[in-house]
């Protein structure tokens, strides 16, 4: 077994994951945000590992 095989498995796994995801929740290009967040005038809204508490405190009453 070579690193080529494990690398191929990683790539295949990734494509399967994205493929299933596209099938279940297809992206909608008509809902895409402006090209760049900086200067867009919109609040940052992406998920981020450091912002768990901030995010919940604004979405779950009482937290």
């Amino acid at each position, binding site marked *: 077994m070579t690193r080529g095989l*494990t690398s191929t498995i990683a790539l295949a796994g990734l494509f399967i994951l994205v493929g299933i995801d596209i099938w279940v929740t297809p992206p909608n290009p008509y809902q895409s945000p*402006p090209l760049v967040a900086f*200067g867009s005038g919109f609040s*940052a809204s992406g998920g981020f*590992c*450091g912002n768990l508490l901030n995010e919940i405190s604004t979405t779950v009453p009482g937290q």
Partner: protein
Amino acid sequence: MMRMVLFRIALILTALILVVLVSLFSGVRFGIMLLAGFGFGVVLEGLRFGFAGPWRAMILHREPAGILAQLLAIGLVACVAIPMLAAHPTELSGAQAPIGWAMIGGAFVFGAAMQIILGCGSGTLVNAGSGNPVSLVALPFFALGSFAGAYHIFWWTDLGTLPIITLKGGTGLVATLIGLIVTAGIFFMLGKKGSRGLPRRYIIAAILIAVLAICNLLVAGQPWGVVYGLGLWAAKGAVMLGFDISSSIFWAASSSVGRLNSSVLTDYTSLTNIGMVIGAVGVSVWRNRDLSQPVPSYPLRTWFAVIVAGLALGYASRLAFGCNVGAFFSGISTGSLHGWVWFIAAFMGAFLGIRIRFFVGLEPS
């Protein structure tokens, strides 16, 4: 020779086609994020720039070059990110999180686990892409751990958490840069004579990583991260298999439900994660020699340790509010004090992890 050139051109075209497809079907911003992910993967794998390896080199051999390069990259990002965050507080958000007992414990465990498999958040993705079987096995468990860590996050934060402390504006930038210089000075002095200089590839890598991280912040509105995307993948899988997530405050929150119902091709950390794996595959294929190397064989107890370390990486990084990328790199470079505490705790954990790595047979003692 000509065949190799054509092959490499085909590789680049394939990557660009993927970016165009994501731009067309998700939006141009998401296409740019995938491109940034490719960049991270190419730089990390192509220039052998990482986090776990340099920490190990410092601890075992007193070679500080890798850590000095990390601090250089963080400083470069801080010079742009901290003033930008102060000037545009709504459009841009930093990696700011509170210091707490669970955060410190999580960083310690993460530091240990990343030395066991010799791969951190970004390293596990890049190593999996370049054909490392240990990272390939650890990766899905990393994602599961990240999902579970977020599931239980409030139980852990209830153990005690300070308010978020952020170094802001000009004063915050100066304080951050002084902190980085002092830290670099300590590692420089502790380093072995003759191994203190920064190799050119590290300087180039630090500059390129900094440029990509700044692009990440400006385009996505948030810093470079890894763990959130992995947890989201596992959460999506859990929901698809019928797992009830309504009892989790985090996963049942409207923002999480919104992301679970959206494509991973619209999630910034997922896109850079995907890009990193593909970028690392691309570099390995480009080199045309790495992928023909045989993979080492390990005993069963080693694979068990890899699985446990993968779970620990994911779970602990959630309690620590990020991994080496989201907490250490992005935390410090966007002025969050938790990034500094994360670094100290994780570095202490690394001493333990190095010992465990020998013990479980991932390395001959």
